[in-house]
């Protein structure tokens, strides 16, 4: 596919995301008309509609799309890094690694400002991912092996997380709500806290697209092109973990986006790594924004957390990919 078609494709996905965001401003406890939403978007007037849109619904939708873009690119980076089509923040243990220490801090070190949580999440996510990658070098780096390592570490961290919740007592309700993954009541400050981390991941991936593309080559070919794996590996791992570290304190775990979005982007066959990354980010944003919209409209006035929606959508996609043999990566050290 040439560059023009690729850019049209991305334009299409971005427009679709924007449309979903605008449409997502309509439903809620008070239904708004499209006309009034567009009016207050253009000129906020401090009336009830304007407050609803600008302080409740818009930041929430933006938070969802930023989180989606970040998680999708995180999955893309982890898949490229490990040459393993199953890699995603959930399966490699990055998400559980970010979540567990954040839960621990909020219960055991309540004086720690939540502004530090992304750093805590980054450290935990990096540690968990490092252990998974170290472990998956056994078994010749087969995809199954990486998945087993990551899922086992996640099981371990989940057991610890639930124990900490048990110790937390009454506080556990709020933490559990966060653990089910969602954007209910997220405000502009959440958006601002999350944004730099997502930008680091997405912009870093776009800047380094040549390096990332080289990672998909065989070891010999990559070395012949001058790729220093051992230098770039930790850099890409940090880049891939940053969005998760930013998203986790705000939205909790949002499963399967990092896995599904890159695969969907690849199915559309854009031209070259840079377009693929941009498309991945756009599709990730679209998926999470849609999931959030579904979650808060399907059972008004109750809300379903977005994590449940993405899990319900992502699980079947995952099984479909496995069944179609798309996750086998033959001949690339699989």
């Amino acid at each position, binding site marked *: 596919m040439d560059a023009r078609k690729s850019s049209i494709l991305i334009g299409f996905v971005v427009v679709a995301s924007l449309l979903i965001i605008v449409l997502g401003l309509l439903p809620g406890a008070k239904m708004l008309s499209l006309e009034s939403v567009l009016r207050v978007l253009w000129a906020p007037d401090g009336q009830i509609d304007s407050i609803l849109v600008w302080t409740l619904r818009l930041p929430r939708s933006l938070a969802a799309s930023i989180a989606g873009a970040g998680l999708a690119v995180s999955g893309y980076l982890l898949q490229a890094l490990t040459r393993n089509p199953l890699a995603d923040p959930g399966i490699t243990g990055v998400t559980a690694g970010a979540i567990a220490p954040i839960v621990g801090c909020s219960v055991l070190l309540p004086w720690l400002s939540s502004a530090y949580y992304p750093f805590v999440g980054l450290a935990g996510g990096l540690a968990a991912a490092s252990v998974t990658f170290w472990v998956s*070098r056994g078994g010749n780096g087969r995809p199954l092996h990486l998945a087993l390592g990551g899922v*086992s570490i996640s099981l371990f961290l989940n057991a610890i997380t639930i124990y900490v919740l048990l110790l937390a007592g009454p506080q556990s*309700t709020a933490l*559990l709500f966060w653990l*089910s993954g969602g954007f209910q009541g997220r405000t502009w400050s959440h958006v601002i806290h999350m944004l730099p981390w997502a930008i680091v991941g997405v912009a870093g991936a776009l800047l380094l697209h040549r390096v990332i593309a080289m990672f998909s080559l065989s070891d010999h070919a990559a070395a012949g092109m001058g790729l220093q794996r051992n230098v770039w590996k930790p850099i890409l791992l940090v880049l891939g973990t940053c969005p998760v570290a930013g998203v986790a304190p705000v939205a909790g775990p949002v*499963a399967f986006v990092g896995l599904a979005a890159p695969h969907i982007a690849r199915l559309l066959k854009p031209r070259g790594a840079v377009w693929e990354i941009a498309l991945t980010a756009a599709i990730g944003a679209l998926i999470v924004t849609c999931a959030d919209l579904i979650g808060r409209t399907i059972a008004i006035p109750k809300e379903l957390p977005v994590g449940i929606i993405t*899990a319900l959508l992502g699980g079947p996609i995952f*099984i479909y990919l496995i069944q179609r043999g798309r996750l086998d990566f033959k001949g690339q050290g699989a």
Partner: protein
Amino acid sequence: MTAGSQALRRPTPWLLPTAVLLVFLSFAAAVFLGVVDIPASDIAAVLTGDGSPEARSIILDIRLPRIATGILAGIQFAVAGFLLQTITRNPLADPSLMGVSQGATLTVTVFLLFTVYIFNPGSNTVAELPIAWLPAAAMVGGMTAGGLIYLLAFKLDLSPLRITLCGIAIGAVLHALAIGLIAGWGSARIEIILEWLSGSLYARTWEHALFLLPFTMAGLVVLPLIYRPLVLLQFDAPVARSFGVSYRKQFSVALLVSCALAASAVGAVGPIVFVGLIVPHLARFLARRHFPIVLPLTVVLGAVIVTLCDLIGRLVGRAEEVPIGVVTAIVGVPVLLALLRNAP
């Protein structure tokens, strides 16, 4: 006896006796040690039908039922893991990796949350929860997850290794659903669900042990019957067929047995992680892959490890005890990492 197993070295003859001795030692330690210090002479008196009323109630109503429940659950998790590892040809399969535990967890959560709404609207008291029904609820979910695995295996015609991956996906989805439900509808019951969810033997009674007993017995009776075909499941379907074994039939039977064992255990004690994964491994390692010994050793070690991990959790936390699921996770992860790291 297959020809292959004779080529392997024989295990040391004292292996099984040592293991049985270990059972008695861990059992004795679990009876004699605890948060409340009781002199050994008093405990001996209780065990011979004598002793003070306090000692009697602590030993007979608290420690012994708890140990019995733990032993039965440990055996069930270990055997369930052994069966799953055999049929998926994946040495690291486990009820909690294949989604069986998560399925059981989800239905138990639903049950805990909604029985109160159905039977006693407006009431939040824990005492009214029908605990005795939990294992039955867990069976529904665990067997459903098993049914999904069966469909994936035979409708989609997946290879055993791909079935493991699908099991991981199913587990992730069911876990997300359970957490979402607890967050959305948990309210006053959150604490009791969390405690159960972390895998705990706290306050288990004879009722729990009696519930598990028939499952353990049934499993132990069925196992010798499906034992020899199981060996052949390690080969491809055509090879198994040439030995007169239907791959599909053996897969289904082993899956059914392992789901029933794992689900009932989850219902009684919560999802205790890593036991089903590590015990069969340890058994294979100790038995030097000598197949006839692996299974009895799995049964024995399942009982020992759960008893010891629970004892550790009781002693470490003293009054605020650490749930056994946390202890098995902490003990299990280094073992698992070493196994994965050194895999061929």
